[in-house]
């Protein structure tokens, strides 16, 4: 007979080992899938590594993919710490990019430093407000934040579509529906060959880490995440704290959107996020809500993304194959949580033996 029992203690070693085992199993199962597609899985995996590290250019691309994942995940972390299930980072990124683009398009000749600072603040405010709205309705009327934030994503997306086809359409694009490119003043400069977003990401990671662990507000967020009634009992203004944290979380996503628009696409478009807002949810969860781990997990995901697009050209495998791999890893890691917390006991014939004595 099989029985499931809760483990009394979760050791760190077991936790790490279980998760590594999960990733290996995900890779093995995906290997079967790759064989099914008619390729050698080992070769495919190796070329994924090559695709992300094989040259200086590829390595830079991997870093560039890591940046938005990291910053957006930090924003989601603040929400998840409070058990506010924010699925709306995608929309918050878009609105951050939108507000930043407003300044980029309307003040193209402003001093570069001033304009970029303005865009950064605008990005934070745009994303922040987009995060604040669902938080307000949740704290006031108890709306479901999962559905609310998800729907807000579509509103943001369609708003950009409208701008792209309507008021912000580039008159010089010969009827092609696109928003004009930013002037060079509105593009983030490079530092060591990669746009400064990487520096921003590192600074924000440190800030979020300090905020969560060493400030009163961070402590309040931790308490409220555990129990809102404990927060109220201790005299916290629970509602205000939820609103503040969601504004900050949205602001981080908004900054990430601004960076993508400014440094990566050089304009605003519906593809500005590239789905980062959703991938970041996975990253945040896999990092176990730890800011430093978010950087590492983001980097690993960037490898998957870059490697995925590389094997597409190298093996003529659709990129969706790499997405399947991502999905597998997530599924296995989430599944492995069960084995971290519980153990399975196989009851054998011991019982009968004892009876005999």
């Amino acid at each position: 007979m099989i029985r499931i029992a809760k483990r009394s203690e979760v050791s760190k070693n077991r936790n790490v080992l279980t998760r590594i085992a999960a990733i290996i199993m995900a890779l093995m199962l995906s290997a079967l899938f790759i064989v099914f597609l008619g390729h050698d899985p080992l070769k495919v995996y190796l070329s994924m590594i090559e695709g992300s590290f094989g040259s200086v250019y590829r390595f830079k691309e991997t870093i560039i993919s890591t940046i938005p994942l990291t910053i957006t995940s930090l924003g989601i972390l603040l929400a998840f710490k409070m058990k506010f299930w924010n699925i709306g980072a995608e929309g918050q990124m878009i609105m951050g990019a939108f507000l930043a683009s407003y300044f980029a398009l309307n003040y193209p000749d402003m001093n570069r430093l001033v304009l970029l600072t303005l865009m950064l603040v605008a990005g934070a405010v745009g994303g922040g407000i987009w995060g604040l709205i669902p938080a307000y309705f949740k704290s006031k009327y108890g709306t479901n934040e999962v559905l609310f934030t998800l729907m807000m994503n579509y509103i943001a997306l369609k708003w950009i579509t409208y701008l792209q086809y309507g008021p912000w359409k580039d008159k010089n694009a010969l009827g092609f529906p696109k928003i004009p490119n930013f002037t060079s003043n509105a593009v983030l400069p490079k530092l060591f060959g990669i746009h400064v977003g990487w520096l921003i990401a590192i600074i924000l990671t440190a800030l979020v880490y300090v905020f969560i662990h060493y400030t009163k507000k961070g402590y309040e967020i931790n308490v409220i995440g555990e129990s809102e009634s404990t927060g109220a009992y201790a005299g916290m203004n629970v509602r205000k704290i939820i609103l503040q944290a969601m504004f900050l979380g949205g602001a981080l996503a908004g900054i990430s959107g601004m960076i993508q628009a400014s440094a990566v696409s050089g304009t605003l478009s519906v593809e500005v996020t590239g789905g980062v807002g959703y991938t970041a949810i996975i990253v945040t969860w896999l990092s176990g809500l730890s800011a430093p781990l978010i950087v590492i997990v983001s980097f690993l995901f960037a490898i998957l993304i870059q490697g995925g697009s590389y094997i597409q050209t190298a093996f003529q495998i659709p990129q969706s194959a790499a997405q399947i791999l991502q999905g597998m890893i997530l599924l296995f890691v989430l599944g492995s949580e069960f084995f971290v917390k519980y153990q399975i006991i196989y009851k054998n014939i011991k019982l009968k033996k004892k009876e005999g004595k």
Partner: protein
Amino acid sequence: MLQDKKKLVEMKNITKTFGKVQANNDVFLTLYGGEVHSLLGENGAGKSTLMNILSGIYQPDSGFVFVEGLKVDIATPKVAIGLGIGMVHQHFKLVDVLTAKENIIAGQKGMPFINGGKISEEIRYLSERYGLEINPDKKIYDMSVAEKQRVEILKVLYSGAKILILDEPTAVLTPQETKKLFEIINRMKKSGCAVVIITHKLNEVLEISDKITILRKGEYIETVENKNLDSRELTDKMVGKSMNLSINRPETDDKKLLLRVSGLTVKDIEQVKVLKDITFDLSSGEVLGVAGVAGSGQKELCEAIAGLQKIHSGKIKFNKSNLVGKSPREIIKMGISMSFVPEDRLGMGLIASMDIVDNVLLKEYQSQKGFFLSKKESREKALDLVEKLNISTPDINTKVSMLSGGNIQKVLLGREIEIKPQLMITAYPARGLDISSAHLVYDLINEQKKNGVAVLFVGEDLDVLIEMCDRIMVLCNGKLIGTVDGHQATKEDLGYMMAGNPLNKGVDDIS
């Protein structure tokens, strides 16, 4: 007489562990038909575990269960029901929106269609036979706690159980309702059933049971016949050491009016009044007890004073300041130092996943200046608490959830005393604690009283309330039924009042 008692259940060498905790270690239990058998032990002694094994909820790690002489493997609750074993849990498992009848037949095998008339007849037969008065067509949500319990018992009997397990059956009952329950149990006993009662209330054990099995920390201590037993001796066996069981009621002189509550009315989310026009005074150096069946408005009363409940109407005056409409934060800012030990320790008073330092910090951090958090002071206070209250923990950075119930309460109570309160609200501060921890809690509260603190003490154990409180007020259904002097109060009086009868209007039988 002894010959016709049939051995129904035999449990031998039962061992069960949960992680590192030995819930049962080599435990024995033999049940005979026509006998009431009490399982006596403190919290964590393994009583419930043993009965959960018998009713198929848990599987033992080792050991055997025999039912009517046959070795059985009770793999699921369904197997247990098939063997005639039924358990009435402490927390009722009834569907609120269904009628008693529907609840009783739920889960029964049989035809897809319900023969309502026949079932009603069967239920009526059973309820008459055992004195379990219920109306089969009444909805559960319309029922009192005692009625719900009768439905639970009927449900078990209807499934054909001969072995009944009652888990803490009197915890939610008034003394009068308890008496009635005991009559029912006696009838079941006469019809040949074996009844097991899980409890830690000594007086009841001595009143109802034929045999008593004592467990302590998962170990089997002994099984005794209920003849010429000394409650003293039983306690010592249960606790494992000699205990002084009396509770002090220190007298204080300097009593000054501190808290005046008048006409307090609180409504819940559905606009139902959960507190109705409550008026009372509380002075410094006084312990005011609050008695009542669970859910009579005690929680709302505590939370209203602490600033956690929206108040519909009425006044709460602390000295001269009005507390109505003030949040806990504002109350602190007014310079009022109020301690609140809530009923829900890990859901409200403490954060289970944080360590002792961070939990001490909860009531401190707001007085710190600036943006950053300083843990230095809390660390010192935590060390101090651990030493002063003898909290057994590996260190102050241990998660509170890893501590035992008694130690958790010590952390909470210690922190609340540390803020040097003028008013202290405690809700069920000794619930779930073993006897020695409970007495430590009573001592701590009495010490506060001697320091001139006004204490509101919400309790469930009437003996404790009578021994400890200066006055006891009784709530029923959100109404204040009356207040009695602790020196003169009797359990019977309190029981009548808990059922909603004011004392001066005559004390007729309520049941």
